[in-house]
């Protein structure tokens, strides 16, 4: 797949996840993390997986990106079974994975450079264009440690985007940023997505972030991770935060909350360790759902 990639970039891909099971350990120590997960990442759509922390969301990305092999089930990209990691499926990680020994420019240029797809002026122009899109053109010669958290995430976004992946995975990429930076990053990201219309998979434990970004919302259960429900989010695009006041948004949110709350109650009843936190988190979110968010 890597070989027949064209210089002009790849088409958005479609990814089918079919009865995915992932267990760790053997015999009596077996822990089922993913239990029969099936969903489709539709072409040029932004799919958001929402579930409580620790439910196995990152495992899904690790399997889909090819870092880990599924115990059973299939993952197909445009009809072909995936084997190992590759530049057609790129991950933007929770923690920054920018190479600390490379400047912003070198980090972004890394992918096309190692695959010898672009060089010289062509590469420079492509990198600078993307850096301008995310407002980092003046920081091209800075090292990652000299950038703020938000700038690091933006660099990481464009480092993935320059490779025109068929699918992009976002593993809670804005986690750990302060609220202000986080909402800015959400706007940046939604712009970039609306501009490029690639196939995106975004993982989050924040329902509000999920609905704001999503075309399709996949609600996951806790331990083991299953698909609870897939909802279509037909909010108008281009989106900005004003959408969060619309009745449509609130309806989706209410329905999703009910599902998540039900899930929380279930795992609480079955005595799951993190169920109490889970329950508290989603009950709390229900209370203030009618209130407008402060930055809207």
């Amino acid at each position, binding site marked *: 797949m890597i070989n027949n990639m064209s210089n002009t970039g790849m088409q958005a891909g479609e990814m089918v996840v079919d009865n995915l099971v992932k267990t760790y350990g053997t015999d009596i120590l077996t822990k089922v993390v993913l239990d029969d997960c099936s969903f489709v990442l539709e072409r040029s759509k932004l799919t958001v997986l929402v579930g409580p922390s620790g439910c196995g969301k990152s495992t899904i990305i690790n399997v889909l990106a090819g870092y880990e092999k599924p115990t059973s089930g299939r993952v197909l990209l445009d009809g072909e079974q995936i084997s190992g990691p590759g530049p057609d499926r790129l991950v933007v*990680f929770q923690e920054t994975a920018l*190479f*600390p020994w490379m400047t912003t420019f070198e980090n972004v240029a*890394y*992918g096309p450079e190692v695959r010898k797809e672009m060089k010289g002026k062509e590469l420079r122009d492509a990198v600078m264009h993307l850096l301008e899109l995310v407002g980092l053109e003046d920081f091209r010669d800075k090292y990652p440690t000299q950038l703020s958290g938000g700038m690091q995430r933006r660099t990481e976004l464009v480092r993935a985007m320059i490779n025109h992946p068929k699918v992009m995975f976002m593993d809670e990429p804005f986690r750990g940023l302060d609220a202000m930076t986080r909402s800015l990053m959400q*706007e940046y990201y939604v*712009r970039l997505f609306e501009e490029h219309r690639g196939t995106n998979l975004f993982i989050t434990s924040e329902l509000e972030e999920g609905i704001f970004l999503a075309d399709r919302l996949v609600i996951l259960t806790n331990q083991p991770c299953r698909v609870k429900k897939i909802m279509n989010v037909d909010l108008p695009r281009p989106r900005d935060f004003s959408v969060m006041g619309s009745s449509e948004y609130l309806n989706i949110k209410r329905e999703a909350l009910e599902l998540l709350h039900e899930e929380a109650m279930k795992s609480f009843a079955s005595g799951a360790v993190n169920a109490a936190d889970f329950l508290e988190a989603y009950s709390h979110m229900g209370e203030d759902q009618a209130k407008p968010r402060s930055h809207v």
Partner: protein
Amino acid sequence: MTTDTVANGAKGVSVGLPGAPQAPQKQTSDFRLTLIRLKFWLKSPSPYLNILGLAGFLLFWYLTTEVLKLPLFEKLPGPTATLDEWLSHDPMFGISFFTLEYYQHIGISIWRVFQAFALATMLGVPIGLFMGWKKTFKDYTFPLLEVLRPIPMLAWVPLSILMWPGREASIVFLTFLGSFFATVLNTLLGVESIDECYFRAAASLGASEKQIFSKVIVPGALPFIFTGLQISMGYAWFSLVAGEMLAGEFGLGYLIWNSYTLVQYPVIIIAMITLGVIGSLSSLIIRLVGDKLMQWKVREAAQ
């Protein structure tokens, strides 16, 4: 993708963009960076405390040996006696700033350390990198390394005299051994300290094994490698002096031992201080080379 739409889109969020209000930043030049650091250092209390500490030690040495002549210290040469000898045009024991012999001893010691350290680095760094890169190679070699490494250098003296034809080669060999294991171990630790996420990122972006080696493993391990080289330089001087004391005909280690047997005590102090200064300078050189190669570490510290 058209820039227009995005520029419009970005307008909505440009108000509080992190970084946007800051003026375009240029990388400060190396020279200016050094000057700025020097200025800050001179303004801080550090340099004056440094001098005070050294002066305190000299005073202690002077009082105990030359004024009070305390029981433990009475046989030791004091600072004035040492300095007199060191600065004399016609030194009593033949070693001073103005004798050729002094520089011959220094020169031969530096040359031995240089050969041994260069060899240890040229062999140790690649072996350490390779051990970290290929699990199988590590499985073969790591137990051997762990058994050989703790053997004190002095224990190698008989073997190295038996193995090598001349004294010169056996001293260099001892010095090499002292420095080699530290270099290998620190390089290996350096590779193992590289976070898994960088390997994943590189593999995802389509880097080949060789590209991962040159663009991730080598730069990622560099900070540890240079820490290791500083340590191994210390070991090299340690082993050198041990080797020269036992088998040398020249060199600072030989000079110390020879002066002891000939009861030329001030020369011992001269050679010891010389060793201390040269040892520090050699560490400093390694650190400067490291800073040069790891701008990303230096810049991080500068801001």
